[in-house]
């Protein structure tokens, strides 16, 4: 690979960027690891405590609360983003004329800053003055359901998850749409001629064919949700109590509110381990699944093309 052999020029091109990267990404990771074995409040001298921070982690009820909350948050976000994103994308493939315009508009929430989105949802959820959500519920005769969404212990976690889910629907839609329109039309045209209904084509042919993209988006969605921070932090900062506490908001609180840099770092390390683990498990699941699916898809495609050939033969 590469035609230029000037070593000095190579390093001149590489080093400035590499140094930046080492300093701002690599160094903090190693430093986080080191700090997670240390007890430090930022003022007194650092004190090596071995695994104490991790021991404390596993005895901390708030940690478990945050972990469970994060899983619920993750499920809500993934369901919203992937199911609605896929649905949008499928619907959009039936729209011939204005697909691009619709795509462009759907994407808008992705480019609005999280602070604006948090403020927006704060006003949608608000009770004083009555926000959009409560007004709409009253308008359709469900006035009994109105509540103070961000302070009610039962609704707060859902209320902070939904904006994050909503925000990226457009992005997943664009990804799914691109995958769907790049499919070879002849495959499902053949099925159509054979009398397959649109729904059958969708679930038996189109969706299995974009399995790779599904894995990818699944991974993105999960890692994205595990890192979820901005909107929950801005809307409730984990409150009331710890009712909507997530891993990252808890880490942030420990580090920057309580000045427990060591314990905060242990939480940060846990977030990384958790993300890597989830990616790994997901890849394994899909790998197994993929082999099976590929065989099945190949069989189906073969059967379809055979049938198609037969038909064409008959027509000719």
């Amino acid at each position: 690979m590469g035609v230029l052999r000037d070593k000095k020029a190579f390093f001149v091109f590489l080093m400035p960027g590499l140094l930046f990267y080492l300093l701002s990404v690599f160094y903090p990771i190693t430093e986080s690891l080191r700090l997670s074995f240390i007890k430090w409040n930022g003022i007194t001298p650092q004190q090596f405590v071995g695994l104490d921070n991790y021991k404390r982690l596993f005895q901390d009820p708030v940690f478990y609360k945050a972990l469970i909350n994060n899983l619920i948050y993750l499920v809500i976000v993934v369901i919203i983003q992937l199911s609605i994103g896929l649905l949008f994308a499928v619907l959009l493939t039936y729209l011939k004329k204005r697909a691009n315009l619709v795509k462009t508009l759907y994407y808008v929430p992705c480019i609005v800053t999280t602070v604006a989105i948090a403020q927006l949802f704060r006003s949608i959820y608000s009770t004083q003055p009555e926000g959009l959500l409560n007004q709409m519920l009253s308008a359709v005769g469900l006035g009994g359901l109105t509540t103070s969404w961000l302070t009610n212990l039962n609704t707060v976690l859902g209320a902070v998850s939904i904006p994050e889910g909503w925000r990226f629907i457009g992005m997943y839609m664009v990804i799914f749409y691109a995958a769907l329109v790049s499919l070879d039309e002849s495959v499902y045209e053949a099925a159509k001629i054979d009398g397959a209904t649109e729904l059958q084509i969708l679930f038996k042919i189109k969706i299995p064919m974009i399995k790779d993209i599904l894995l990818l988006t699944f991974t993105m969605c999960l890692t994205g949700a595990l890192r979820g921070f901005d909107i929950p932090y801005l809307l409730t900062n984990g409150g009331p109590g710890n009712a909507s506490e997530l891993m990252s908001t808890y880490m942030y609180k420990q580090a920057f509110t309580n000045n427990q840099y060591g314990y905060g770092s242990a939480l940060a390390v846990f977030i990384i381990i958790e993300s890597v683990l989830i990616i790994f498990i997901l890849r394994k699941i899909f790998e197994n699944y993929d082999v099976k699916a590929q065989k099945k898809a190949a069989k189906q495609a073969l059967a379809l093309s055979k049938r198609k050939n037969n038909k064409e033969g008959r027509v000719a």
Partner: protein
Amino acid sequence: MKEKAIKYLFILLLIVFLIIQIYPVIWLFIASLKDSVELSTTPFSLPKAVTFENYKNVLGDGVIGGYMWNSLKITMISLVLILVLSATIGFALSKFHYKHSKKIYSFFMFGIMVPVQITLIPLFIFYSKIGILNTSMAMVLPQVGFALPLSVMMFVNFYSFVPDELIEAGIVDGCSPYRVFLQIVAPLARNTMITIASMYSILIWNDFIFANTFISDSSAKTITMGLKDYVGAFGNVDWGATYAAISIAILPPILIYFSLNKWVTSGMTAGATKG
């Protein structure tokens, strides 16, 4: 007949979803044009009388201008650094013969997976030690660092389409590798540069987590931080002013998005799918 009915149903559904997706954003702009009385009595109707009072209030104290300037400064410096550094790294890794190139490339790609939260504590400590908390520098460093993996990937992708013969020809004609890069290769990378610049200008402008951690001094605050303060600063939430401030803050990304739409979406989807 039935097929047509279904088709209209689909279009109707799409429009309903479209409203859910963009109505909040449009509503924000409409709400910012209402006076506070109207806002509290009929917040969701069209304004009876359009007023720019909220904008006057927000822009009047000049604070938001300072925030915008800070954001602009950070975005611009970061963008220049991201483009220069990733263009050169990509060039080194794809056009030079060096046996560890692949390893260095994977080392960069590893960065795509790293959650930014893990860097907050160490960088905060590091910054307070060298005294650059509350400066633009504190923001630029992580923004560039975290943008590099993806940008390097995009440049390496692009350079793989630049034929080696072109570079060889330049060398044979007596150009140094530096001139080959500056005069032959870099000008070709225009599209890659626009993609990266449009995407990261939006992402950096919108950043919240780094600003919230490294900046507390109001003279160094970015626009997103400034928005967070709006609720508090006016005592009991002045929603009209808040909406006006939000509208001002999200306008630049929206303008960039609508004018460079194709590049923004392609960059962001590439970024997301490679993560």
